[in-house]
């Protein structure tokens, strides 16, 4: 079920909100949330909801055992088994076909492909499950004794499918006791509406132009068309993913949860390092805390660690070589940036230049990210540098593509910066006025998005496929 759909915004959410707030105590409210979450997931993955429930049971048992076992070796062994079980499910659904494909290619054999499609959101909930058992192993949190609460943590519908990756330590306490406040309801609804607008207005319209240029016409693009398409995709992926995160965080707030932020205006960054501190923060911090630091972090063979982490980050996004290349592309950039910093060459001292350079770098990265087909990627890169021999007549098409969202482009540009928020805060200083503004904006955006959804075809969030 997509957040930006009639069935979610018009039926599922109002019903869940009604039942939730009509329930009198925490237990009943958690039960409502759990059942809603399972229905939400089963709606999209009627078969694999049981796999998720089973995986959660494994983690629940592993968590209890980890807290009881005293021996360090036994603990390590158990943790290893639990991690292997979690990752094996992820591997089978997400990477097995990739492995088979490459094996067949290398050996000339014809091993048949795994016949099942990847369950939606498996990368996200597997990583959440990993944080649960690893944090227990580390002694950062106590195991949850109630299985249903572990299931609620893993399956909670606001962040189940596309994050942010919520750590158990962040919400363990909130599951048991949290306060749903009227301010939380208003702020959460406002955040949800903002996220929906990001998706339905900004992401979908820029995405339509991006798709027209990058998918349908990629082989006949001129350099300007290729850059414009990439420009639109750069907006699309940001508004799509950050929109989903906003909706997840907003929904969480309505139900009394405080999820960590996932985006912090990444396109205003001045370096690659800063970009990744602002983009998909929950994933970056996951890899930092659970892979990079255990590998030795900055203390030993730092560059190798960076390489491993970014190859994994790439692979996390998808089982395709382009994602690995995309990850390694950032690894190289980060290593280069660190080298330059050591030589005291720091572009971030030049505000506009560094930002433009960073954006161009990120855009090229999205070009690699976009094409899972190598021949398409190479064809597109040729267009990007103006080496496409077929790019003669498409310039008007590119121009007219931009005409379709001409008056939206300035809003897209401003929308990726903190300017709107700063203006709003500066103009509306009183809390009461802020609440009024948020309520009015929320209702207006919900209505507008609902109207626009009618005219848009099925448009899932980009990060659903990860």
């Amino acid at each position, binding site marked *: *079920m997509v957040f930006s*759909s*009639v*069935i979610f*915004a*018009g*039926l599922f*959410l*109002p*019903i869940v*909100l009604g039942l939730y707030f009509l329930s009198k105590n925490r237990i009943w409210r958690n039960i409502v949330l759990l059942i809603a979450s399972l229905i939400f997931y089963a*709606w*999209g*993955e*009627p*078969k694999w909801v049981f796999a998720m429930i089973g995986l959660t049971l494994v983690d629940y048992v592993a968590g209890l055992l980890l807290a009881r076992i005293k021996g360090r070796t036994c603990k390590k062994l158990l943790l290893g088994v639990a991690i292997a079980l979690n990752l094996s499910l992820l591997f089978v659904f997400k990477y097995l076909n990739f492995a088979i494909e490459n094996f067949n290619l290398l050996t000339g054999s014809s091993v048949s492909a795994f016949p099942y499609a990847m369950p939606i959101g498996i990368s996200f909930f597997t990583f959440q499950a990993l944080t649960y058992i690893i944090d227990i192993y580390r002694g950062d949190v106590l195991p949850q004794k109630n299985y249903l609460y572990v299931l609620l943590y893993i399956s909670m519908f606001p962040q189940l499918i596309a994050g942010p990756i919520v750590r158990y330590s962040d919400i363990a306490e909130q599951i048991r006791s949290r306060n749903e406040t*009227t*301010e939380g*309801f*208003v702020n959460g*609804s406002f955040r949800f509406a903002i996220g929906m607008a990001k998706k339905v207005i900004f992401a979908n*319209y820029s995405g339509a132009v991006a798709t*027209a240029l990058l998918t*349908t016409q990629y082989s006949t693009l001129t350099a300007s068309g290729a850059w414009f398409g990439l420009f639109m995709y750069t907006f699309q992926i940001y508004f799509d993913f950050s929109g989903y995160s906003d909706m997840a965080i907003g929904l969480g707030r309505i139900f009394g949860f405080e999820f960590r932020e996932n985006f912090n205006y990444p396109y205003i960054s001045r370096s690659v390092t800063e970009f990744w501190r602002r983009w998909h923060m929950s994933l970056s911090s996951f890899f930092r805390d659970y892979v990079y630091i255990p590998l030795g972090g900055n203390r030993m063979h730092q560059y190798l660690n960076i390489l491993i982490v970014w190859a994994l980050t790439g692979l996390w996004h998808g089982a395709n070589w382009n994602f690995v290349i995309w990850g390694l592309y950032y690894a190289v950039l980060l290593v280069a940036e660190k080298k330059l910093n050591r030589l005291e060459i720091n572009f971030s001292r030049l505000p506009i230049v560094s930002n433009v350079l960073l954006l161009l770098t990120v855009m090229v990265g999205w070009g690699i990210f976009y094409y899972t087909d190598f021949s398409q990627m190479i064809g597109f890169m040729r267009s990007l540098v103006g080496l496409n021999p077929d790019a003669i*007549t498409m310039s*008007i*098409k590119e*121009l*007219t*593509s931009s*005409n*379709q*969202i*001409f*008056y*939206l482009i300035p809003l897209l540009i401003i929308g990726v910066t903190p300017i709107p928020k700063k203006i709003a805060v500066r103009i509306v200083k009183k809390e*009461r006025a802020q*609440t*009024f503004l*948020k*309520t009015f904006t*929320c*209702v207006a955006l*919900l*209505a*507008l998005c*609902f*109207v*626009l*959804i*009618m*005219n*848009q*075809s*099925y448009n899932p969030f980009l990060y659903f496929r990860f």
Partner: protein
Amino acid sequence: MKRTGFYVFVIALAFCCLFGISVYSFWNPQTVSTEENRALTSMPVFDKETWFSGEFSQEAEDFFSDHVLYRSWSIACAQEFETLMARQSELQIVSHDVDIGLDIAAVDPSAAADSGTASDGSTAANTTDSDDTTADEQQDYIILSDRILSLYRFDEADTWYYINTINACFNTVPDYINKYLILAPSRVAFEDAAYQKYSSDQKAAIDLVYDNTDSLVLTVDAYTPLSEQDRDETYFRTDHHWSQFGSYFAAKALFDIAGIDYVPIEDYDEYEAGTFLGFLYAQNKAAAVDLANYPDKLEYYLYDGINNNMTYYTLGDNGEYVEAQALMIDPSRQGYYTFLESSCVYSVIDGSQHDGSCLLVVGDSYADALCTWLAQSFEKVVVLDLFEFEEGRAGFVNMIRNMDVTDFLIINHVNNLEHVNFTAEIKNLTQDAEE
């Protein structure tokens, strides 16, 4: 706190409104959307199979999306919003999904009267079964201030699929029957070079097909005579079809090559049937604002005041054919629908000859206008709807035999070479029907 409570109430009220609007879906009887020229999704059956296959959830989402309260109004607003975002320019090129095989009028006759639009499908394009609707292809359009052009994109594989399919179809037809093929060019082929360059070469595509068509088939060159005419006379500006006047030149080319007597257009009387905004306009309303006030004129021709009768057959609930009567040309059907009643599985036009000749026509909606000329030269013209006919090869052969068919024609416009669903429907005539 009290104040915040008020704001919570306002937001909760907004969610309640969304709930009410969505829940209305259960009582909404609408089955088609004239704005989008498509049938609306019906509520799926809930059972173990549909649930675990994911079919139920997918279709239920579509159902709610299709049936919410104020949907038509919402779509109009959304299109207005899109117009606000767009900068109008002299030339725009846009892409849309194309619905193959759906005709709103067939599902809801009142809808056609409202919209006056035609579908991009076939003669054919008419159906009473919404399951047959598939938005399967992208179609590019050039939008100009006074007209819209649907572009043609050559695809070698699709063209060869078409060639092999029509050859198989012609081979299904006994050799004692005269066989013809007409590939009708679309308007953009005759536009100025400035616009033609966005479209593939139609003449080359037609030649490729004709050069590889079975040698027993007479291929009819409609391109050359049409290229000698004024495109504003031979084609519509807001619709993707040729006019009845335009189709005359294809008919004449067929008569000439087949040696069939015909009545020249000079002997016909011309009538005016008002104006209409066609399918191309309906597809591009948001971008083609100027065209709303510049509809197409519809003119039609009758020889000696004769408007032939036609009998058309639809499938009843019990699977038996239901027969009905109509006039071949009827301006009350509006727009391009004026030519032939096409909401049926097949129709039989009573021609003006009495020589036992019977022409069987399969193809797309370009056949509709064309058949009005052919009716004067045959005793019977049978028009088969590819998308509705489900009897496969056996039924097709039976029809040829039972109708005493003497001539067989496949006619479609060039764009359908790339619409594999259309070709697949022709292929169905050469294969056993599914149970």
